[in-house]
């Protein structure tokens, strides 16, 4: 993903349950688009990265350099969506659960 922007943004990540060894009991989905957030939250942060007020302050403090060791704000999920998962429980009964915050919709600093 070299062509992805350096600035904080949502990146594509598809998770296959077989890759993490959960495919034996998860019936559906076999995989889902989880996405992830990555990129810099450098000063000055544009509105597109939706910086929180705290992130703005931290970014200024970092840029000024008055307090040593303060890092740049992190690029993190802002809005997330749920995922319905159909799986077999320990007694081999079919269970449906709707897990919140499984897929990233937007990222922010």
């Amino acid at each position, binding site marked *: 993903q070299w062509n992805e922007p350096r600035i904080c943004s949502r990146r594509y990540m598809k998770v296959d349950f077989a890759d*993490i*060894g*959960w495919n*034996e*009991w*998860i*019936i*559906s989905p*076999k995989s889902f688009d989880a996405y992830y957030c990555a990129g810099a939250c450098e000063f000055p942060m544009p509105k597109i990265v939706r910086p929180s007020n705290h992130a703005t302050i931290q970014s200024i403090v970092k840029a000024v350099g008055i307090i040593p060791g303060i890092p740049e704000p992190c690029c993190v999920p802002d809005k997330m969506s*749920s995922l*319905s*998962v*159909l*799986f*077999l*429980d*320990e*007694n*081999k*009964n*079919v*269970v*449906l*659960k*709707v*897990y*919140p915050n*499984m897929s990233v919709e937007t990222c922010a600093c």
Partner: protein
Amino acid sequence: SPPACPVQPPADPDSSAPGRDPRRGSPPPPGLGSIAQDMVAVHMLKLYEKYNREGSRPGDGNTVRSFKARPEFLAQKPLYCFNLTSMQDSEMILAATFHFYADKRPRHREVFCKRSKNSSCRLLHLPPVLQLNLVFQSIHQNSAYGLVKGNITVLLQRRGAWHAKDISHIVKESKRAGELILCVELDSGEKHQGFPEQVASHLPYILVYANDLAISEPNSVAGTLQRYDPFPPSDGDPNLSPNASTETRVRRDTYLASSIQNNELPEVDYSNNKYNKHDIWENAYRSLKPKASRKDRRRKGQENTETLKKSQVLNFDEKTMKKARRK
């Protein structure tokens, strides 16, 4: 008793109305394997598709559990038993439904009509409405008798079809009392001869619609979907590695009174035992790393040897070069 139509629970978003065969819709998705033959699995797949299509509405709950019946004999009566122990304390039951298949006609009448060789026999002897008593009882361990939890009479106008009955109050009461082995007797008033000759796909089942309060907690997905313990129990195992001691490890760092100075959360007691094991994520992820195959390991071993050889050769070369320079 209420006439024929069983009650559909309010939280049930399923389009399969009582008496309709859920298998009549689209075929189950591929890759489901043998479980697609079960009616309960087909029903759950339909619910899954509906939740995916429409999303779960507020009040629907975030969990649907299915329980397959296990035919059992109790006090010489054929019963269908359900093991509800997988329900979690954090799951608040919204509704529960009992799904059962009504045979086309009672067996003894079938035999009688075969003997009489009269083609109109079946029509003459088939009552328009079948009355069925559903006797729910909870079973205690090591007990031959159950405690009756509910008695529901249903009048079935359609035979050879699936029916559903709201049993929310029974399941809620069973969970509250911690009596999670629930059995049901389908009593049609006929003499008990054993279980009807029904295929496995016609076994009754229970669906429990619940709202899992713990699902919003951090790491909830691992609580239900991660089946292996990244920290296997090691109590009393003499073959332990020296680092695998179960005793609390002694902190060797300098004690800093202020949380501002030590970068730790002020309200968290890090000396508490519970943080020693299950909250160390690095270890959990370490266990997820795929093991290299024997071939890969052998190759890696060879690589290591080669690297070692190379470094030795390089050192030798450097020494040679130094000597050469001196000369």
